[in-house]
């Protein structure tokens, strides 16, 4: 009962601070909305700007649009396209010289200019654009090469090549995902962003509770609690539960809000709650440990914000872990975030249940036990000393 009361008062204390209300209730949803609209919009095909007026450009545009690699925005003048690309929209432009068709027909190699913005997608779109133009210039290229080799008139060679080409069906590549399912080209979806921000904010908000713990000690609240017939053990557990409660509240709030607002699916609910409970316990343990060893609550506030953000960034809450190189991926797994993300990935992509995420759950539990054990030991010492 006392444990619950201590924990409850810790949670109330957090919400008395109006700024905390913003950081717990509004900020996470805002950031998920911003990032989601930035990266998670799967329906958004990137745009490539092309100068109009040539056959080869029209054919390449058809190819781009039919493969859904990109949408094509036409521009009448090179200057206009340059201008728009320099503003970043479209991210990539292709300047096709007006004499491109004629030069291809004449057996020459026209030069196209790829305009790149500093957009992140530019490099990838550059390759996409090149491939589609190269594919459309293939036939004239083959004509040119064979005309040189055979010494026959270009017109005759062109007839042969186009006849042969029409009789050759294209090579087809079928993409399949191991274990079934549709291949996805837009890997960073809303749910991945939501998982990352949930873990980032849960850990951060539970961790910043360390400062409140130091305040309790400095203001003598802890001393007064000890003077009542309450065992140190109860106080330590109560303080721990308080941080854990803050973390769990944050996690469940984001889960429910994102499910309602953005339709994020969290997989098997019971498993998700087990993973979150353990993750919040790790955060609570870390908060208690910092609260037990640091003396200055203002410095602790700074340290916990920094540690919360840095561990979160390292642990894959801001960038999917699968994009890390192997070394960084190993380093990331010193954080509880990475393990929790692994668990959610299992649940989300493979419909995993508790049995499938046992390794991740085990690691999180071990981290929680270790941190809470260390923290309780230190906290017993500091609580009775002050």
């Amino acid at each position, binding site marked *: 009962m006392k444990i619950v009361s201590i924990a409850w008062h810790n949670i109330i204390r957090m919400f008395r601070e*109006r*700024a905390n209300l913003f950081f717990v209730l509004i*900020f996470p949803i*805002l950031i998920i909305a*911003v*990032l989601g609209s*930035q990266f998670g919009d799967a329906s958004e095909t990137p745009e490539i700007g092309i100068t109009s007026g040539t056959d080869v450009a029209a054919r390449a545009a058809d190819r781009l649009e039919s493969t859904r690699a990109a949408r094509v925005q036409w521009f009448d003048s090179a200057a206009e396209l340059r201008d728009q*690309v320099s503003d*970043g*929209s479209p991210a990539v432009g292709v300047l096709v010289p007006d004499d491109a068709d004629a030069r*291809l027909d004449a057996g020459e190699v026209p030069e*196209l*200019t*790829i*305009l*790149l*913005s*500093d957009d*992140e997608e530019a*490099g990838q779109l550059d390759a*996409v654009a090149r*491939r589609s*133009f*190269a594919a459309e*210039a*293939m036939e004239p*290229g*083959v004509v*040119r090469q*064979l005309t040189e080799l055979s010494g*026959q008139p270009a017109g005759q*060679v062109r007839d*042969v090549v186009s006849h*042969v*080409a029409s009789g*050759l069906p294209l*090579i*087809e*590549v*079928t*993409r*399949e*995902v*191991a274990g079934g399912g549709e*291949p996805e*080209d837009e890997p960073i979806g809303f749910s991945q962003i939501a998982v990352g921000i949930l873990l980032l904010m849960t850990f951060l908000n539970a961790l910043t509770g360390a400062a409140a713990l130091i305040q309790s000690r400095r203001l003598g609240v802890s001393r007064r609690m000890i003077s009542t017939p309450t065992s140190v053990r109860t106080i330590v557990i109560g303080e721990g539960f308080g941080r854990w409660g803050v973390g769990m509240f944050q996690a469940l709030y984001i889960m429910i809000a994102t499910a309602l607002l953005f339709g994020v699916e969290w997989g098997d609910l019971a498993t998700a709650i087990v993973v979150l409970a353990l993750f919040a316990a790790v955060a609570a343990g870390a908060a208690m440990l910092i609260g037990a060893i640091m003396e200055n609550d203002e*410095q602790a506030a*700074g340290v916990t914000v*920094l540690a919360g*953000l*840095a561990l979160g960034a*390292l642990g894959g809450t*801001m*960038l*999917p872990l699968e*994009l890390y*190189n*192997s070394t*960084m991926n190993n380093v990331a797994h010193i954080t509880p975030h990475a393990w929790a993300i692994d668990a959610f990935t299992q649940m989300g*992509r493979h419909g995993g249940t508790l049995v499938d995420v046992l390794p991740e759950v085990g690691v999180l539990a071990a981290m929680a036990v270790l941190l809470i054990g260390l923290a309780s030991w230190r906290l017993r010492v500091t609580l009775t000393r002050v």
Partner: protein
Amino acid sequence: MIRALRAITAKDLRQRLRDKSFFLLGIATPLALAFVLNLVFGDLSEGELEVRMGVVDSDGTAVSAQLAGNLADLHGTGAIEVRTLDPATDPDAALGEHSLDAVVVIPQGFGDAVMSAQAPELALVENPDRPVQASVADSILDGMVTELERTRLLSAAGGQLGVQPGSDQQASDLAFAQEWPGGQGLDVSSRLMAGMAIMFVFFTVSFGVTTLLEEKQNGTLARLLAAPIPRNAILGAKALVSYVLGVLATMILFGAATVLMGAEWGSWLGVLALVLAACLTAVALMAIVAGLAKRAEGAGAVQSIIAVGLALLGGSWFPVSGEGVLGMLARATPHFWFLDGLEDLVGASSWTVVWPSLVALVAIAVVAGVPATALLRRKLAP
């Protein structure tokens, strides 16, 4: 007036530099965060995405061997690994066994189909846990297929014309030039550093502004007001201290990024101009909050909300596109214009390219600064 301004400014500066918060929050924290973020994001931008592919050639013809060979030749370029697997390998199992991202399967009959007029088929089996790498593998394969189609057309048409083009005839039909009309912009680590610097300068500045509220709570403000000091001197000193510390911290961060990370910013004159203008907006915005707040703690909390919120919207953490509703909101933040100015500056020949950004920043500073001054003057009552 000048003497009083100097005395208060000097006192506040001494106080702030003695207190560790300037170094901790103004310099150490943004540096540490930029460092960690750079570890995480840095690789990705340099095309160092690790892609591990496998090739299963169940066909065993010259054509399939050529394709498999071309793929295998990619091994070691960039961060691409290609592993040639046994023809009887089950691709699904191989994904897990060798931790591959995608396996190219060349089925039996592929070579014959290529040589005749049938539709040749290839399969790409993707690892569901690595969709990004799998789509890179897909586009690599796509490029190879186009090449193969060209070779096929060349030899088929060549056969009809009675010539036999060699297999090494890899001519390109188009030439490509690259151009960056808007400049190449900042690299990822410099951009992260700049983003963190502009975000944290709001914190650095906010401490200076809120000391006014603290002085009021402590009662030292009443004593200042009782002294023969013009009120503008008190306000001016508070603003000046915040501004000086803000500019100092930001310039130290930019210098540190140059020395430690080898960041390049372009003209330092342009950097200085942007920093001077951006710190002005930070002082003005933080002063509004201090002017509205009743107590120093309350002001501090709201200031951190605004600092983090604006930084998020303005692109300190992630680049924002500048389009749509979010883009409009982004354009209202100083962060957006500061970073935009830096992006333009890096490849520019003269520092004057930052003019549009400077104008926007000064406009924000004026729009926020006028009400801020009025609000804070009201605070100057005993």
